[in-house]
């Protein structure tokens, strides 16, 4: 059954359609990924689902409650990790989590235990009395996810959870996020513009310019690209092209000094291909489709960077300032 139901949701900022007639459902206990370039409308959608922003039209139902008319009930059901950190760096890890528990009206008798459990789950229990500003970027992110889990929400929203983290911290964070649905029974709704991160999702919606342009499991989406791509370098590309057409009835294309063919099973096709072409082949590689190819295939372009408005610029400079002065 679906725990999030979104129906013809739109959000306009003046003339800009940040979210444009979006529909989707999220099944309980799954990881749902919102994938798209910066400025595609991911954060706007999350803000609406978290009741921080009112939609222009359409409905959003979270855990059975309407985000516009029952915001307080929605907020009780969800935990949120925003793109920018909302930890208080001048408080300790323990204080950050304790205040969260109080804000969410967690019973006094349970607070201590829930906070300690959360800290143990992310492996920061030993450092609970350290100020957050002494933590590394990866530790802060983990702490933030742990904080969002303290009140035992049914749904966890993660907006670009790994933004600005080094590869090791990213892996570390994913390792622990992917444990959550099974161990804590939580549904995860996340956004990302890293294609490789979306691989962990059970279902993905690809969003571009406010519209959902594709939906499905990572496997389904990759299949939609039409199979593997074989890249060849030969001594005579034109001759190779005609051999492939005549002997194997496949259509290849030339891009730069390379030749590429899209086939269903690249590994199975390779021996035959080399037998036909003989020694004009200089090099060959097979590429499995990635979600990146899915995106390219659908939109015909690389991930587009949005021109920032002035508030974004300010935020960016604050982020840069923080990065420089944080003792990470």
């Amino acid at each position, binding site marked *: 059954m679906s725990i999030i139901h979104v129906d013809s949701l739109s959000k306009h900022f003046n003339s800009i359609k940040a979210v444009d007639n979006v529909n989707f459902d999220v099944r309980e206990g799954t990881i749902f990924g919102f994938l798209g370039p910066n400025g595609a409308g991911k954060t706007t959608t999350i803000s609406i689902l*978290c009741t*921080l922003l009112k939609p222009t039209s359409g409905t959003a139902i979270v855990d059975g409650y309407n985000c516009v008319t029952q915001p307080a*009930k929605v907020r009780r059901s969800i935990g*949120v990790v925003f793109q920018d950190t*909302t930890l*208080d760096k001048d*408080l300790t890890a323990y204080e950050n989590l304790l205040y969260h528990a*109080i*804000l969410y009206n967690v019973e006094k008798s349970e607070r201590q235990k829930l906070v300690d459990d959360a800290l143990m789950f992310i492996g920061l229990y030993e450092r609970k009395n350290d100020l957050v500003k002494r933590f590394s970027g990866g530790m802060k992110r983990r702490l933030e996810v742990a904080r969002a889990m303290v009140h035992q929400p049914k749904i966890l929203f993660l907006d670009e959870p790994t933004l600005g983290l080094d590869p090791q911290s990213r892996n570390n964070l994913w390792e622990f996020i992917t444990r959550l649905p099974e161990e804590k029974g939580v549904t995860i709704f996340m956004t990302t513009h890293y294609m490789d991160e979306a691989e962990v999702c059970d279902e993905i919606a690809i969003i571009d310019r406010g519209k959902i342009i594709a939906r499905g499991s990572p496997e389904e989406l990759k299949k939609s690209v039409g199979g593997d791509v074989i890249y060849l370098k030969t001594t005579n590309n034109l001759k190779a092209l005609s051999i492939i057409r005549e002997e194997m009835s496949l259509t290849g294309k030339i891009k730069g000094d390379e030749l590429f063919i899209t086939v269903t099973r690249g590994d199975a096709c390779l021996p035959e291909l080399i037998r036909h072409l003989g020694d004009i082949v200089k090099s060959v590689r097979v590429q499995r489709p990635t979600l990146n190819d899915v995106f390219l295939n659908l939109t015909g372009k690389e991930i587009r960077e949005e021109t920032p408005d002035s508030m974004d610029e300010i935020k960016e400079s*604050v982020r840069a300032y923080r990065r420089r002065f944080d003792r990470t």
Partner: protein
Amino acid sequence: MIELRVVYVISAREFKKFLREKSRLFSSLARPLIWLFLVGGGLSRIVPTGGNITYLQFFFPGIIGMTILFTSIFSAISIIWDKEFGYMKEILVAPVSRTSVVVGKAVSGSIVSTIQATIVLMLFPLVGLKLSLLSVLLIIPLSFAISFSIASIGILIATFYESFESFSIIMNFIVMPMFFLSGAMYPLRKLPEIFKLIAHFNPLTYGIDALKNVIIKEAGEMGADFSLPLDLTIIFLVSLVFIFLGTKAFNRRV
């Protein structure tokens, strides 16, 4: 509806941070001290005050008022700052009422402001004032009440805060005039009519007047312009009206 747990969390957080950040305490105390001794000290040489107090003594309640004004306004403005950049989002996405958030912010700003005002107050022997223990104990809750009224105004101002540029606009067109037209530096009754009129609509005027009523009781024509009960009534009404307007504006914006 006001949820006490929200007011508690916002205040406890502010208080802990205040205790941990020693530099913030020092820098916020620097301003009143500079004004008191560098501005007040100079003026006291050329301004004949008449009656039985020096200009520095007359200025002292005004300096406490200044400490309250700056600390309260800026801690209130951080409500928007926090929303864009940090912790406020954590509070706003929690199942708590916006009214509690606004009241919590006003209370937390007032706590910090009261501590700073009290520290400045303890300098009273340096300007030759004599205060009884009772007066000192009275000024502390009084400072809290004034702080709360100013913080309520600050929150309303904060909802108009759009960008970094508005910061200097707020400074130059709201905070500084509020200070100069509050009776902090000149007795109201000596101001030109037009300024006197404006000063009557300045909430800080009554806050500083209340402080004058306690700190410089027997200053004659350099002393308070209104009675203490009138001052307190206005401080109370201002708090009530502005916290209401601030909450409405904050609800609409956030």
